[in-house]
């Protein structure tokens, strides 16, 4: 992406940075909304400081014709509210990019290779409203002008957003908006690109965050029970569900802690409801004992861990992929559970539906691992065609149950016990696939004992050596059932069959790796890319198929120790080169590309030496 074709195709990124509490993010989100109502795709990335006010806060909005996979590596437009925003971000501005800054707040260096547009945000807002609040709305006005957005469109947006706050708030905001808009006109800023509204966009696309996508996926999957405890950055899932649940006749309850939240989900699932609890790493840790119990009781339920920087309180508002080992192994004893990792905002919707389907089908907890970057990222997502949504009996395991898509969404119902066949009913009957019949309270004759103690097929506590082994086998057999089904799916990797380099990633890095691959292909470096959505149980034959013929494997992870790499090394005996990023911010396509380029040189040299 060099200077010459800078504006030739629609693909640009805008970053707004400032002090937390200045409304940087809300201005950016309003602008993203304008952009989403056009024929283009939108993708946002946000970092908040952990404090309510103060600290560096920024939003990046990428606008592109066609799908967007990542936030991109560099930015085309930078709006800097203060010196910190400028200092932290100016290195990311592409040569020839545009800098919009408040000259009263920001000192810029000489010889900057950028188009520089000063705008006195603080002065403009003080003149327009008599208060310092609303710099963000001035910036929104200026941006709107720069991108040829009609004033009335912005006006409506402000009214929608602040409508409930009363006359003065609206009036001040509109004055601030006008001040920003006119300032662009008065200073003769050259409009860069016209964002023309497209009526179709609103019909077919949602602009949602990964967190909202999870909440919507749960609702679509038929989940009608959420219990939770607020924790950054998972809170928006809980907030969205507390709003939506009553609308669809469901129940949302805030509990006193994460232990109680998962306990309530276990209770609800025992009573026959599909249940979910959203949390982040520290909360998942607290849930450990109940997660174990759910696995032992063989109850379906879904836990979402929106990962943040750890350990301990760590970086609550930053991103990291560092809960994988805890998610897979983190309980006492050995308790099977399934781990899914959605790879995009849209995927958050479908993987959540899939999580419920797997949970119902296998009667066990399913964990969805997302992270702050995907949770707070907003993207345009096509509204699925709901005529493609069908309910099926949970016991009918089909490939579609495992991978819902916009073309076909199957929703698994609970495997219900036939009331005629209750004679000799054993809740924990050892079957060929490990899944046993289940009754729910209310069904006469279906009463059973279910407990965390090791038990026999009827549920009665048993400490016999044979029984423990038998029931361990039975519970783990369900993972085998799932991985056998997954092996039948088409391989989940992309890229050239001839490639000698393979890249493995998981979760939110998919888009960045994909863009790195496209970048590499332009430079003649081929690699193939595996990005499993089901991390545990991993479909081994599929992974081996991917590994076959590769000279070098590279693993990309946003953590310090290479958690997924440990897993892959142990299981497949490969020695990957590991690219870790543990800085609280997402890895960029360029960073991945740079790593791969170095590896490509080594791999090539080896090839040459052999020749």
């Amino acid at each position: 992406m060099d200077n010459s074709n800078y504006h030739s195709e629609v693909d640009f990124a805008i970053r707004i940075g400032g002090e937390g509490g200045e409304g940087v993010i809300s201005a950016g989100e309003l602008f993203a909304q304008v952009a989403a109502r056009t024929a283009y795709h939108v993708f946002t990335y946000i970092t908040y400081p952990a404090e309510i006010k103060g600290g560096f806060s920024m939003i990046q909005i990428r606008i592109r014709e066609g799908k967007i996979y990542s936030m991109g590596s560099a930015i085309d437009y930078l709006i800097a509210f203060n010196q910190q925003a400028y200092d932290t971000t100016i290195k990311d501005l592409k040569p020839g990019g545009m800098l919009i800054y408040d000259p009263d707040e920001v000192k810029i260096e000489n010889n900057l290779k950028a188009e520089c547009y000063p705008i006195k945000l603080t002065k403009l807002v003080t003149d327009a409203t008599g208060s310092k609040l609303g710099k963000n709305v001035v910036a929104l006005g200026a941006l709107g002008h720069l991108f040829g957005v009609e004033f009335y469109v912005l006006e409506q947006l402000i009214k929608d957003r602040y409508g409930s706050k009363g006359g003065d708030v609206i009036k001040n905001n509109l004055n601030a908006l006008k001040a920003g808009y006119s300032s662009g006109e008065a200073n003769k800023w050259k409009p860069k690109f016209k964002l023309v509204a497209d009526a179709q966009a609103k019909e077919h696309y949602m602009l949602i965050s990964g967190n909202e996508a999870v909440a919507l996926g749960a609702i679509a999957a038929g989940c009608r029970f959420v219990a939770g405890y607020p924790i950054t950055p998972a809170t928006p899932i809980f907030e969205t569900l507390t709003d939506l649940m009553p609308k669809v006749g469901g129940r949302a309850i805030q509990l006193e802690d994460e232990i109680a939240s998962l306990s309530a989900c276990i209770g609800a699932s025992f009573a026959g409801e599909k249940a979910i609890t959203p949390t982040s790493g520290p909360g998942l840790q607290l849930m450990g004992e109940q997660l174990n119990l759910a696995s032992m009781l063989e109850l379906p339920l879904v836990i979402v861990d929106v990962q943040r920087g750890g350990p301990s309180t760590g970086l609550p508002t930053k991103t990291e992929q560092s809960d994988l080992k805890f998610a897979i192994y983190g309980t006492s004893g050995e308790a099977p559970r399934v781990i899914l990792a959605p790879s995009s905002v849209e995927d958050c919707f479908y993987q959540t539906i899939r999580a419920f389907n797997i949970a119902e089908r296998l009667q066990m907890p399913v964990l969805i691992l997302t992270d702050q970057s995907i949770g707070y990222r907003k993207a345009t997502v096509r509204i699925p065609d709901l005529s493609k949504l069908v309910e099926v009996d949970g016991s009918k395991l089909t490939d579609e149950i495992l991978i819902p898509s916009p073309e076909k969404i199957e929703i698994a119902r609970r495997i219900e016990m036939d009331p005629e066949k209750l004679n000799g009913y054993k809740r924990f009957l050892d079957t060929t696939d490990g899944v046993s019949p289940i009754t729910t309270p209310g069904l006469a004759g279906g009463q059973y004992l279910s407990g965390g103690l090791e038990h026999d097929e009827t549920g009665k506590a048993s400490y016999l050596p044979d029984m423990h082994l038998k029931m361990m086998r039975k519970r783990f057999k369900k993972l085998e059932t799932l991985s056998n089904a997954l092996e039948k799916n088409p391989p989940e990797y992309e890229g050239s069959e001839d490639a000698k380099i393979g890249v493995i990633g998981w979760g939110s890095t998919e888009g960045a790796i994909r863009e790195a691959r496209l970048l590499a292909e332009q430079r003649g470096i081929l690699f193939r890319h595996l990005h499993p959505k089901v991390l545990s149980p991993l479909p081994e034959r599929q992974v081996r198929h991917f590994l076959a013929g590769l000279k070098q494997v590279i693993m990309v992870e946003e953590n310090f120790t290479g958690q997924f790499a440990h897993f892959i090394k142990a299981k497949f005996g490969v020695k990957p080169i590991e690219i870790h990023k543990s800085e609280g911010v997402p890895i960029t396509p360029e960073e991945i590309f740079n790593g791969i380029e170095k590896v490509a040189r080594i791999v090539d040299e080896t090839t040459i030496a052999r020749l």
Partner: protein
Amino acid sequence: MKRQLQDYKSVIEPVWCPGCGDYGVLASVEKALLNLDIAPENIVTVSGIGCSGRLSHFLNTYSLHGTHGRAVPTALGVKAAHPELTVFAVGGDGDGLGIGGGHIAHAARKNVGITYLLIDNQIYGLTKGQTSPTSPLGVKTKTSPHGVFEDTLAAIPIFLAYDVSFIARANGVDTKSLTQILMEAISHKGMSIVYILSPCRTFPLLDSKGLKAILQPLPEDHPRGDKLVAMERAYSDKPIYTGVFYQVQKPTLEDRLQNVIKKVCEKENGGDNYSLDKVLKSFA
């Protein structure tokens, strides 16, 4: 066909020590359920860890023997999801006042319609005699070999402070009164706690005879709605009162949840639930 006591018994024989107070509790629960004629399939029993946690094994209900201290929030989930069920939470003094003590306040705030049987034997009996939150000061236990040096927790005043909407204390050995109290607790709309004194024979801190000497029913005219009178009598140690200390009516969690659904759907969708299509379009 008229239900029998047998209908409430599971096929599993109780494993408590001979003479354990928990036998009396189990028998009283069965009797109360029979008297109220509640179908076993509509009952869920959630229990914690400890001797009393085993109670769920012996009832022919939908029974969930969970983890230590989490019976109350687990039972809350059952009741919130299916309000038509009769739901018990069962646990001992360690389970309910030690490890799980923090949950009671919040279940009380929500007034979830469960009956919590808190069975107190003043000791960790299952693990063979360690100090519990209600072990008396100075008593020697396995973990207080030189005598308990902490103050004893007074449970009933705590429940009163939390405003649990039904609070009773009972003698587990006196099955007749316990059955009566249980019937009232189960019929109560909202959260009920029956705090049952149940002597442990193996590590005897409470004994039936001693209990009989210090226990006394609350006066006939005890005003159930008066929290201050209840508080005063709850703190009395000579005599220790039994009976229903406190009972008030307030909306249950189940009602509150149903009201939110009704309010939201009426206000925003003419009384109907939203369709999935409408939910998704609201994000466009």
